[in-house]
Each structure stands twice: as structure tokens, then as C-alpha cells.
């Protein structure tokens, strides 16, 4: 059956609308990149759109020479690796145990975890807890409190549940212990979900800043996101809206901010084309569960 004229016209407009969506989505990225290569005067004059004006790489050199930037960048890498490792170990243990029907109290433990998705202690009790543990200005304050995402755990649990029971039974008849089965049979079969989970956690940890903002007041502990946050907030000079004395109240040049944004987001953009399909499949698994 042939298409009506109206539908053909609609299809043309549809393509145009979606091209506009693509443009609007990408514009802020391209604008940041353009500013990072532009001169300060040209940015302040409002001349920079998608194309760098007064092209230079001097700002990159300035930022890359800043020791504080490197300290923060290394911190981000460290926190991301440690936090993701802790999360993976904890989430895998929990999800595997809960996926076993023979586990007594399975329903109870699942509900025990799910309840925390809908009700939480809130900002202040969490803050007090971390301070009481003596974790202020320590790495533990940013790598432990988010160790298990219940949402991720449920996705993983449903993946484990779909692995045929017979495989494990065969292993246990051959004398394999639970640990042995988990390491030699289950985990090798679960590579796709493990990859997805690592990415979920790693991206979240790379991007996080608020824990560090709450619990760190030593600059040498800041992750790059907090370093960037202080640059950005420094721009609204005199308007101290955050909490810390670390607020830089001097005017920070727009091109410095842009360069730092580019460098912070670069690892995410670089891996993005390879990882986004994992994210999509992860979110689909999660929704099937629900």
C-alpha cells in the first residue's frame, strides 16, 4: 500500500525535527570544545559559538601545568577504581546469594534491600554517620557509602536466575563448593552483565562529586569533579552559595573552565561509543525484572 502525501510530508519534517534534536543535544558539547580553544577576550565578547575564535592551545597548556588539576585527576582515577572494585565484589556476592532458591530467608533479604530504594536516612543522618566513623577526609567516605546499588543488584540477580540450574547441579555433584561454582562456572558465564555493572558503577563514580564536597576539606583529596565545581562556582564571584571555604571567589576565566570540562568529560566521551549498548541492555534487563 502506498503512503499518503501527508505522511510523506510528515516524514520529511520528522527527519528535520530529529536533526534539530541532534543539533541541540550536541551544541553545548561543541560550544565547550570551541571555547576551550578560544581566546578569553573573544569568549567575553560573546563571539564563540561552534567554531573557536582566536584559536590557541595555550589554555590546555596552562591547565595541564596546574599541579592541583593533576592531583584531582589522579584522585578521581583512584576513587573510581577502588569504589568500583568494592561495589562489584559486594553486589556480586549479594546478587548471587539472593538468586539461589535454596537460600532460606531469600524473600526477606530481597525486601530488606529493596526497601532502601524507597526510604532512606537522608542527608543529615548519613553525614553524622560518616563523621562518627571518623571517615571525614578519608577515601572511605567516597568509596564505601555507595557500595551497593540495589537497582544494579536486582539486575544482576535476575541475570544469575536465568543461568540454567543444571550447570550448577552438575558442578556440585562433581564436588565443587559454592565458591568454586561461583568463580569457575557462574562468573565466566556472566561476563556481559559484569561488564555492564562495571560500567554503571565506574561512570557513576567518575562523575560523582557531592560525597567529596561533603566530607573533604583538604584540596589534595578533591576529585576532578569537585575541582571543576569550585572553578565553576568561583565564576559567580561574591555569591558564595556552596558550603566550603574552598570556594574560589576570584573570577575564573571562561576558557580555563571549558578546558577543565573537556578534560573531565573526555574519558567518558572516549569510551561512550563502545559502552552505550551495554548501558541500554542493562537498563532493559532492569525493566524486565520490574
Amino acid at each position, binding site marked *: 500500500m502506498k503512503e499518503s502525501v501527508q505522511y510523506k510530508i510528515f516524514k520529511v519534517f520528522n527527519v528535520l525535527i530529529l536533526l534539530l534534536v*541532534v543539533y541541540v543535544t550536541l551544541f553545548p558539547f561543541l560550544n565547550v570544545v570551541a571555547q576551550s580553544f578560544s581566546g578569553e577576550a573573544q569568549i567575553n565578547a560573546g563571539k564563540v559559538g561552534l567554531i573557536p575564535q582566536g584559536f590557541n592551545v595555550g589554555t590546555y597548556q596552562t591547565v595541564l601545568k596546574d599541579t592541583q588539576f593533576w592531583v584531582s585527576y589522579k584522585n578521581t582515577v583512584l576513587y573510581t577504581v577502588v569504589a568500583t572494585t568494592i561495589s562489584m565484589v559486594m553486589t556480586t*556476592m549479594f546478587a*548471587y546469594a539472593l538468586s539461589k532458591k*535454596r537460600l532460606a530467608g531469600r524473600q526477606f533479604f530481597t525486601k530488606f534491600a529493596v526497601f532502601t530504594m524507597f526510604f532512606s536516612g*537522608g*542527608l543529615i543522618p548519613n553525614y553524622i554517620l560518616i563523621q562518627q566513623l571518623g571517615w571525614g577526609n578519608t577515601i572511605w567516605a567516597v568509596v564505601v557509602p555507595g557500595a551497593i546499588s540495589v537497582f544494579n543488584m536486582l539486575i544482576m540477580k535476575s541475570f544469575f536466575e536465568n543461568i540454567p540450574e543444571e550447570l550448577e547441579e552438575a558442578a556440585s555433584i562433581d564436588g565443587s563448593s559454592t*565458591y568454586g561454582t561461583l568463580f569457575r562456572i557462574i562468573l565466566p558465564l556472566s561476563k556481559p552483565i559484569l561488564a555492564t555493572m562495571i560500567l554503571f558503577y565506574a561512570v557513576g563514580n567518575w562523575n560523582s562529586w557531592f560525597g567529596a564536597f561533603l566530607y573533604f576539606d583538604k584540596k589534595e583529596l578533591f576529585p576532578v569533579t569537585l575541582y571543576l565545581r569550585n572553578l565553576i562556582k568561583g565564576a559567580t564571584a561574591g555569591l558564595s552559595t556552596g558550603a566550603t571555604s574552598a570556594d574560589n571567589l576570584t573570577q575564573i576565566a571562561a576558557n580555563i573552565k571549558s578546558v577543565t570540562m573537556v578534560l573531565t568529560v573526555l574519558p567518558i566521551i572516549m569510551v561512550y561509543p563502545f559502552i552505550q549498548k551495554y548501558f*541500554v541492555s542493562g537498563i532493559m534487563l532492569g525493566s524486565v525484572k520490574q
Partner: protein
Amino acid sequence: MKPAVQVQKTAQNIVLPDLNVKTRTKILTVLKKDWQLYSLLVLPVIYLLVFKYLPMLGNIIAFRRFIPGGSIFGEEWVGIQYIQMFINDPTFWHVFRNTLTISSLTLLFCFPAPIIFALLLNELTSKKFKKFVQTVSYLPHFLSMVIIAGMVLQITAGNGPINALITSLGGEPIYFIQEASWFRGIYVTSEMWQGMGWGAILYLAALTNIDESLYEAAKIDGANRWKQTIHITIPGILPTIVTLLVLNIGSLMAVGFEKVLLLYNPLNYETADVISTYLYRIGLESSNFSYATAIGLFEALIGLTLVLSANAISRKLTDSSLW
């Protein structure tokens, strides 16, 4: 006790009801045989107790006097003093209204956007172009809130691209972030920018599950594409819409705290300040922990009530509910 039954108690039928065996011995037997499985639970359960349930109990300081450095459960009962405090606090009600306004506007604009986006994508003939648009649209979802805030401030700056466009059209530059009247618009627009593509994933999945033969039948009946959309496509994704609407209503109180914290300033407090940022300032800038906790507890209880009622309504209206 029949010996035969005991002999049968192997791994496969350990759950056989045998009332003569004491529960305790049963548990011990199970633990002994299967301790490795149970050992996997230990750390996660401790984690949940310490980092999720302990702070929940820590909410008790909404009713107790708290001394920094003292017990996390406070020192002595003070009754509902802190509850009365926020009920009589005009600023609290101001931020309460702000929270509801921002979250309602977000729901109004950002909930339908992914549905429309998914429907538009669904009409594309070229698979490659569809994939390209989708891939681009997910990108903002992966950014740190700090980056989002940085981009928002840059785009809306006095000398930023939006003002460049305004002045080129002969208008006066607008200092968006310093004007209270612009905050809601900035918030909702940036939410949509960030979430529209990602939000469409589940709808796109639902769309692929619609039976192709329904469309064939409709075509034979002479229905055009618009009629097919109204009568087949939208009913096909309705369960997904309802489920996500329930989730969204459930989190109505949860305005993006990090985003507001990064974007607000004293010049736009009037519209930008929300419950979570207000309690953040009360608690962590003015060190009034108990008062801030009382506000946080109130907010969390409203949130829980919303989730539970939205879920109950969804269960009544449709078959789909979250639990």
C-alpha cells in the same frame, strides 16, 4: 520419626516438611552444609545495616537534641519541637512550594518528551539514522552533574551563545542565572536536554514488541499512519507509560538536589531554593542538625507515601504495579 524420611533428607529434599525435627537443628544443618552460600550475605547485610538502616534510625534526632560529636541518636528527647519549628517556618513553606512547582513542571514537560521522541524515532525509515539519533540523545545522561551545571552556566551566560542570538536579533541580553524568573525554565529545559533520549529507551523497546500483524490488519481496513498510531501504537506502549508515570509521581518530591545546589545563588533563591537545598543549608552550614533532620524526615515520608499510593493506584487501574 520414621527413619526412612531421615535417610531421604539429602540436598534435594531438605525442604520436605518434617515437623518432628526442631527448626533450630534444621537451620544449623543447613548452615553447616551450605555455609559458603550464607557467607556471601554477611558483608552486604552489614553494609545495608550500617549505611542504609542505621541512618534511617538516625532520623530519630528529629525528636532529640543532638550534639556534634555526641551519639548519632542524640542526647535527650525534645518531643516535636523541631516539627513545630518547620511548621511555623515561613521559609520552609516557601521552599516546599518551590519544590512542588519545579517537580510538577518537570513532570509536565519532561514526562511526555521521551514518549513523543520515541514515536518520532519509530517513524524513521532509515535504521542507520535512527541509531545515530538515539546514540547522540543518550550522551547527556552520562555526564556528571558538575559538567551539566557548567554547560548550563556557559550557555546562559551574559556573553553566552543564547544571548549572542538574542542580541543579534536586536534584543537586550538576559542574565538568566541571576534572575529568579528564569530559574524554572532553565531547570526544566536542562532536565529535558539530559533525560529525553535516555527516557525513550523503554518506550522504544515497547514499540518493537507491538505485533506487526496489527498494523497489517489496520492497513487493510484503510487506516492511515496517524490512525494506526492512535489505535495501535499508543495502546501498545500504554503499560510502559503507566509504569513510568507511577515511578515519576513517586519521586515527585525528589527535585534534582545536586543540580539546584550547583545552579542556585542568592539572586535566584526565591524560585530556586527547594526543600533539600534548604535543609542542606540549615544542617550543614548552620549546623542545626536536628531541625534539618526533621525536615528531611518529613520529605522522605511524603516521598514514601507518594510511591506507595501511586503504586496502589496503578495496581487498581492497570495490571501493572511495581510490586
